[in-house]
């Protein structure tokens, strides 16, 4: 299919132009090659999954996208321009938000405060301003609060707004982390195993939220997931990695019928 102008998904959603393109990315840690010459793209409005067995390099790929790792080779193109190596916080400010495999929340803070940190990049008033002249800073704070409250409603976490997140059960922590990432109103949302360690019911909730986020805000999402059922259900296109290499790329149907992918998952001997 010609992808230059985007495509339409089976369920009728319009997928737009390329937002992020990875070109021939290679990432090494000393002598270990974590990612070997991988290229793929992520399109506007898409839910793009990265799957693969343990140690395939999926999380490393996400870390490359959000700037925790800098690849030794390859180019990263974002919104039509080649991205220079930059700090993760600068990349976050360009509209890339993420969640972590092992939940990284601010445990000492309430749910509300955690989500508010997601809005930091949108807050303009300077330190001096806030100290001297309360008016604009206060107005800004309440504007930001409104946006955050919307997200809280959206993810149905009203009842835990004031609870310190350290006390929340695992499933809810995952949801708060998603809320914090969403609060940044990202162009591209990265989810590192959003359903890891969840029971069936929680997985269903999370799948629904991911689809709703994509639908409601038009957020482009790249996610890593182990549960194949979930991946097949919610993603538009799938990249399959194994031992740092890309072994498949396409719609869920294409990928699931790919012999190399089947081998990787069923553990056929490499010869």
């Amino acid at each position, binding site marked *: 299919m010609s992808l230059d102008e985007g495509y339409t998904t089976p369920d009728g959603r319009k997928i737009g132009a390329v937002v992020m393109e990875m070109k021939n990315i290679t990432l090494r840690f000393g002598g270990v090659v974590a990612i070997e010459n991988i290229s793929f793209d992520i399109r506007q409005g898409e839910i793009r999954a990265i799957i693969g067995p343990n140690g395939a390099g999926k999380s490393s790929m996400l870390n490359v996208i959000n700037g*925790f790792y800098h690849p030794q080779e390859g180019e990263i193109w974002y919104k039509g321009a080649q991205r220079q190596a930059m700090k*993760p*916080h600068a990349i976050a400010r360009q509209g890339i*938000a993420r969640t972590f495999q092992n939940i990284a*929340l*601010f445990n000492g*803070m309430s749910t509300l405060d955690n989500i*508010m940190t997601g809005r930091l990049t949108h807050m303009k*008033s300077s*330190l001096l301003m806030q100290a001297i002249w309360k008016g604009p800073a206060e107005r800004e704070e309440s504007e930001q609060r409104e946006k955050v409250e919307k997200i809280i409603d959206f993810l149905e976490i009203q009842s835990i707004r004031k609870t310190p997140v350290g006390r929340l059960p695992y499933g809810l922590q995952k949801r708060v982390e998603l809320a914090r990432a969403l609060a940044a109103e990202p162009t591209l949302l990265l989810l590192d195993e959003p359903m890891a360690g969840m029971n069936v019911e929680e997985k269903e909730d999370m799948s629904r939220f991911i689809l709703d986020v994509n639908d409601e805000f038009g957020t482009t999402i790249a996610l890593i997931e182990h549960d194949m059922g979930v991946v097949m259900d919610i993603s538009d296109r799938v990249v399959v990695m194994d031992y740092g290499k890309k072994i498949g790329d396409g719609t869920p149907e294409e990928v699931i019928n790919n012999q190399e992918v089947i081998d990787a998952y069923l553990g056929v001997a490499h010869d």
Partner: protein
Amino acid sequence: MPEQLLFAAEVTLNGLMAGVMYSLVALGFVLIFKASGIFNYAQGVMALFAALTLVGIQDGQIPFSHLINTIFGTEMHDFGWHVPAFLAILLALGVMILFAIVVEKFILKHLVNQPPIILFMATIGLAYFMEGFGDLMWGSDIKKLDVGLPQGISGVIDETTFDWFGYGFFIDRLDIAATIVAAILVSVLVLFSQYTKQGRAMRAVADDHQAALSVGISLRFIWVLVWSIAGFVALVAGIMWGTKSGVQFSLSLIALKALPVLMLGGFTSIPGAIVGGLIVGVGEKLFEFAIGPMIGGATENWFAYMLALLFLVFRPQGLFGEKIIERV
């Protein structure tokens, strides 16, 4: 007997105020520990350095004059002007902010992701460097610091209490000033960390570096900010202690008095630093008053440490510290 009771009350009050002075120093430690997990050994020296700088600026001293004179054979010591206290404090604050930037650029930046013990060692090095640098810059004489804070016995309190109880309380006006300043300082710090965006970012960095980066917080900016604030607290502590006992190099030893305060209050709690300081202040004064005469006095030298030791045994996280739970 009421005489004794009144005397005990006076001792308690004085202890509270001495405690405030300890709290001022402990605060600086807590700020940096909370935000970066670094136990900043240099906090006491920072207070000394801030006080030295303040006096130097106030008296129009030429920095490094001794060094310059030795190299060029000149005889310069001061500019011959006197800078008003308020302006001098602002300038000294500027120097402390500059210091924070330098620390971040030359030390912290290069030690990212190192274990806390490495960073702790770095701050020990920093402490000795600063002590020498302060000496080189401003000389090693004991200096008198006067920024217009009231000093001496408070006549009003003395007379009022005399009218009420027939016994005049001796309370130093400097201690009262220190209490007020500390109260303002703590309120400002709490407001800052709870209600400003930088405050929220600071708490975020304290909790989780990776997550903080992922929401767009610059760690380097936060570190400069935190060390600047710690520098400001050091300046306040330096002013109070400098006014009380003169600006001299033993000032850096007040850091050692802050340690038991931190163990009592918990390393991560601002209210803990205050309460811990008050407990140590009152405790050591009352202990000296009640038990001291029986065992030969001078208990103030060790009481705080003994108390800290007891706390370490029974409540290692301190009164307000976060309970350490290791998930397995």
